[in-house]
């Protein structure tokens, strides 16, 4: 059994988690081109090595970030998403600006 350390719930069986792919920063929807948006949606780094990824602890619906080695499958570190995403994205304000 593989164990992942959930920042909220502590060490749990890996089967309780869902992988959400690599963390990438969303380009500004106001100024981004179609090409860049397509790349943001679909193109992957697919790095062989330590990658910063989204994971979710399903029973508690808690999304967090894990640094994992995609070659050795070692989980280096897990932490709340707030460590990276510490600024609120004001979608409502952005769509108003667009009008």
């Amino acid at each position, binding site marked *: *059994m*593989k164990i992942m350390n959930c920042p909220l719930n502590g060490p749990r069986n*890996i*089967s309780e988690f*869902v*992988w959400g*792919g690599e963390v990438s920063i969303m380009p500004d929807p106001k100024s981004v081109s*179609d*090409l860049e948006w*397509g*790349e943001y*949606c*679909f*193109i*992957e*780094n*697919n790095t*062989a090595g330590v990658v910063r990824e989204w994971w979710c602890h399903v029973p508690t619906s808690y999304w967090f970030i894990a640094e994992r080695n*995609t*070659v*050795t*499958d070692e989980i280096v570190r897990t932490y709340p998403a707030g460590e990276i995403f510490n600024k609120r994205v004001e979608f409502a304000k952005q769509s108003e600006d667009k009008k």
Partner: protein
Amino acid sequence: MLPAFVPSGLFRYGFSKKYPARRHFPAPKDLKSTYDVVIIGGGGHALACAYYLSRYHGITNVCVLEKGYLAGGNTARNTAIVRSNYLTPEGVAFYDKSVQLYQELSQETDYNILYSERGHFTLAHTDAAMRTSRWRAEVNKQLGVNSELIYPEDIAKLCPSLNLSDKVRYPILGALYHPPGSIARHDAVAWGYARGAAEAGVEIHQQTAVTGVIVENGVVKGVQTTRGTVYANKVMQATAGSSSLVAKMAGFRLPIRTIPLQACVSVPVKPFLDQIIVSGSLHVYVSQSSRGELVMGGSTDPYSLYSTRSTLDFKEGLLGHMLELLPMLGELKVLRQWAGMADMTPDFSPIMGKTPVENYYIDSGWGTWGFKATPVCGLTMAHTIATGEPHDLIKPFNLERFVNFAQVGEKGAASVGH
């Protein structure tokens, strides 16, 4: 000490010039500095491409570079199923051409690939799966592919081994039945192509890893390898599992995530299962090989990994469902387990053809559907390399479709949840 009876006839046969031993491949020689075409990767797709280039396009100054040993990657790790009952018209046309090529392949390469037509059953356990099966059957029939939706009474006649009881967690409501569905010997497919290509002049270099791609002003000039630099007019990469890493050397990214796909076989038993049984809802597929082993696979792993390790989680999930379909397997032991690294694309279709680098071609995104496409990939990629323009059958699978939002959503692919 010699045995009392020396079979001298056998010796005479063995040393006679009348019956020379036919080498599979010529002995390895030094790398040349320049080739017309360099193919990165030495799996089934690469070798098929080299075969069609050399035999049908007259391009014989071709070099195949393989990091490990021939056909030792996903060509050796699939479950050897061949079928064409896909969902999208683009996919059906493409894979059906592959089935046709497979049916003639033993003659084509003069190498017995043990092609065995079994009939392919995609079981449906839910109303949604019944609906998709009906949809697939209609698309298939429209395109001339033998495929139909059948109900439990017909399944019972065609495949008496299956547990059709309704006293299980997921009773079988019907199945998409595809009579041409087949299995083949995967190694033989690659070896047949390799021998045919080598006899036509293609050089196959194993234990030769590509470490860099030389690009000048957006045009590929050659590759760096562990045995020196090789220049080429055209380069193709066919490196399933490592596609992103090789593409990165050429300077572009792909919409691919590398995710392991695991499989296992049981100890051999007497033949009892003629058919290929697949259940998308239960994440199970199983067929019995000509050796009597049950070849079993399930869904891809739940997260990305560049590794071919096996897990207990996978086998628990797979075999739990397997016992519901074939309860008599309860006493059977697993003999071997393995995994391959699959190139998963967001729309479950391959990525083939041209790339942002001129004269650099790609054959990737082969997720869980690569083996069955081996001949048609070789045929169409050889055409693409020889003419510089993508073959009609692979035009929908171009790399730009992702940023142009023109994906080919192939929900008929194996081992993907839908």
